[in-house]
């Protein structure tokens, strides 16, 4: 080949390498950006008057006088809406039967849409479900709902070769020529006065109990559940992992038994997480009966088995990185082997072991599959940390961040309504895992600096 071609190929080869690194970084950015931006929106957003009313009713927060004034102002702005509806009702009563029937369906739909936007109309008996008691608490959702009040969706089946195409039809058209036609421009023009959007910082999202299947409130039970599961997993995995590593580094020889052990550990590291879930179900719950059914204990044990290889490997590496001179010095001072390990080698390798532990914690906190059958339920109350009833907490099933992200994103009855809660959960989980990993990276950097001198 000619030199020019070879050079060009060389350049493009290097370029491809750069491109793949760039793609890797870009995909990380593309994945994290929506999670961070929209997850942040669960904590800081434009809250409407309905949000403040909900906070007052369900969580007893906020100044009641200020709230009453705001609610009154909003009600005043909304009053013309309900007046127009009442006028239209009167108009309807005078119409003929056929004409009336034509309007009744659309009117019912309109009322339902208005209820979703503003909450129950004045004079209507208080609904039972919390989600029906309040209108839209977030301005972004309120705008979507306002759009639904103004337009309804129809499907266009005119082209038989394709699926129905959704077409938006203004509801004003349904009521053209009646007194209700003026309602729609009014709604559009006065939406802000009726809902009072205001920048709201809702940090309690993290520490509030969820209300009515996550329609309102926060994610505290999930956060706490993840905390207990991670804590429990490390409680079992840490001692076992460190002891195994000590044995493998300091005591084990080169025999067949040891190479079998090592194969087992690497096999364990490669077992798919869903298989751990089945194993946890079949062994910890159905055979050992650590608890009657799902529980934090069973989930922790399963997670502990899952992270055990990681802990062993990290601890092994940390123990091996302690200079041999440390051990020799300890032995020359007359320390026994065990004493040398406990009082010299282990403290010296502690930062390295902790690094591995922190990374394993991130793994245990984020794993979903192993806890599906062993610990996770979608709704539940975790025992409060402040009461320190750890044993009780360990015996009951719990909601957990990773499981509830799945559950809310796929199985919840109103998936689109609570996107902000889902993003808030993913955000919390990712931040938790990233903070743990950043800690590990920082610790490792310090260790390598120290080892360099």
């Amino acid at each position, binding site marked *: *080949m000619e030199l020019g*071609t070879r050079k*060009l*190929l*060389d350049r*493009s080869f*290097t370029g491809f*390498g*750069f*491109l*793949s*690194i760039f793609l890797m970084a870009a*995909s*990380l950015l593309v*994945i994290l950006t929506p*999670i961070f931006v929209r997850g942040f929106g669960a904590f800081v957003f434009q809250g409407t008057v309905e949000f403040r009313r909900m906070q007052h009713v369900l969580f007893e927060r906020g100044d009641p006088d200020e709230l009453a004034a705001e609610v009154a102002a909003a009600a005043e702005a909304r009053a013309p809406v309900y007046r127009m509806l009442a006028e239209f009702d009167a108009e309807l009563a005078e119409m003929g039967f056929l004409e009336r029937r034509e309007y009744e369906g659309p009117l019912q739909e309109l009322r339902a849409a208005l209820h979703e936007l503003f909450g129950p109309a004045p004079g209507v008996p208080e609904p039972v479900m919390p989600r029906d008691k309040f209108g839209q608490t977030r301005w972004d959702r309120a705008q979507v709902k306002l759009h639904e009040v103004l337009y309804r969706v129809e499907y266009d089946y005119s082209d038989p070769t394709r699926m129905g195409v959704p077409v938006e039809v203004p509801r004003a058209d349904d009521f053209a020529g009646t007194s209700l036609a003026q309602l729609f421009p009014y709604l559009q023009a006065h939406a802000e006065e009726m809902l009072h959007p205001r920048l709201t910082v809702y940090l309690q999202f993290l520490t509030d109990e969820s209300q009515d299947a996550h329609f309102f409130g926060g994610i505290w039970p999930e956060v706490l559940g993840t905390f207990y599961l991670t804590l429990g997993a490390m409680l079992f995995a840490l001692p076992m992992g460190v*002891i*195994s590593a*000590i*044995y493998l580094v300091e*005591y084990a020889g080169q025999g067949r038994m040891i190479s079998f*052990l090592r*194969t*087992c550990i690497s*096999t364990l590291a*490669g077992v*798919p*997480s*869903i*298989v751990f879930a*089945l194993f946890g179900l*079949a062994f910890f719950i*159905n*055979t050992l009966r650590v608890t009657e059914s799902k529980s934090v204990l069973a989930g922790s044990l399963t997670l502990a*088995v899952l992270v*055990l290889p990681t802990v062993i490997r990290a601890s092994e590496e940390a123990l091996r990185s302690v200079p041999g001179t440390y051990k020799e010095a*300890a032995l020359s*001072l*007359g*320390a026994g*082997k*065990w*004493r040398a390990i406990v009082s010299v080698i282990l403290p010296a390798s502690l930062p390295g072991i902790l690094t591995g532990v922190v990374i394993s914690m991130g793994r245990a*906190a*984020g794993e*979903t*599959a192993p806890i*599906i059958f062993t610990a996770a339920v979608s709704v539940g109350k975790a025992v409060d940390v402040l009461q320190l009833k750890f044993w009780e907490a360990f015996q009951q099933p719990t909601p957990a961040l*990773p*499981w509830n*992200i799945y559950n809310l*994103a796929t199985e919840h009855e109103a998936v689109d309504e609570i996107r902000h809660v889902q*993003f808030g959960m993913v955000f919390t*989980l*990712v931040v938790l*895992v*990233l903070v*743990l*990993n950043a800690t590990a*990276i920082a610790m490792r950097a310090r260790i390598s600096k120290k080892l360099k001198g």
Partner: protein
Amino acid sequence: MHDDRSQPPLPSRPSPVPPPSGGAGGERGRWMSLRRRRSSLLLSARANMMRRLLTWLGSGTLLLITSSSAIVVLFIFYFIFRDALPFFQLRGLGEFLTSTGWYPTANPPEFGSLAIIFGSGIVTLGAIVLSVPLGVSAAVCLSDVLPFGARQAVKPVIEILAAIPSVAYGFFALVVFAPVLQDSGGRMLAICTWVIGLPVGALALLIIADLLAARVPVERRGLVRYLTLGSGGALVLIGVYALAQRLAVIEVVSGTNALNVSIILGIMALPTVVSVSEDALQAAGRELREGSYALGATRAETILRVVIPAAGSGILAAVILGVMRAIGETMVVWMASGNAAQVPEPWYNLLEPLRTLTATIAGDMGEADQVTGSARYHVLFAMALILLLISFSCNLASEWIVVRSRKKLGK
């Protein structure tokens, strides 16, 4: 093992008295008083034996704890196998592995898992096709091209990619990526065709033109080159254009499909592939590279013809580990694969929803749980057994490869 005195003076306060070896008769009284103060300094024959026994017991306990991970592995195999066996007894192996009819709730039920096994396979294949070229070339860039500082900057990216929980990837695939794919999947595919097709086509053409030109006499080389480049260029352009036009009109019925999952799984497998193959490339050694450079090879030639063949086994291990990561992943495929137990038509159509082993286990266990003992419950364990056997053999293979290459390098 050296003589173990496990109660020595602390290293920080060394005792001036040397430890005696056994009870010395005449000075016994003096030693006894010392012994009362510091019994550890004295070892009678009995105490010595006790100590040995203790050491033996201690290391035995350590071994026992260490072997618990081996016990766990055996237990996993035992329990999965124990609950998978009734299924094969009830239904046999034939239907499970050859039929594509998956109707576990029908009456009579059908448990043909071929489509599901196929789904796992095709998704894994897609992930590997994406992550291996990108991962290996990123590893090459990290080990041979980038300076040390830049490498330190890229490392955290890899670590974060590896650390993000799978459910977050799944959530992204379902909530962010699937709608985009559904709305503009065809256009995205067309753009990808242009972006990939044009440079690859141009490079291939250059090589072909060079090879052709080398076969003719020197004075006609220029003519041959330009002819090849001209006609080939037109062909490439037409080909890429035709393909892009065909792809652009595709309407993606559902954003939760095999392509979505393959891309996300590919991204998830990247960190494993990059870090393992980077280790392998670094282990290939400096001498090989220097030898090749000395012979006048370019960097690309050195890496492609010398370094990668030398590091081949390590890269193969990286690919296997990537396969393990992709095939064992649950949450992403459960959330974003569409969960339709079917073989797409035609089989390579990645835009169809499908279903994998892991997602089936995760999704069906909730319903099968109450009826423990039914074929429906045990078939899930049979699927887990398949997964377990695949991951076990992959693991053994990668270990064998590593051991073999180590032997080869060490001679």
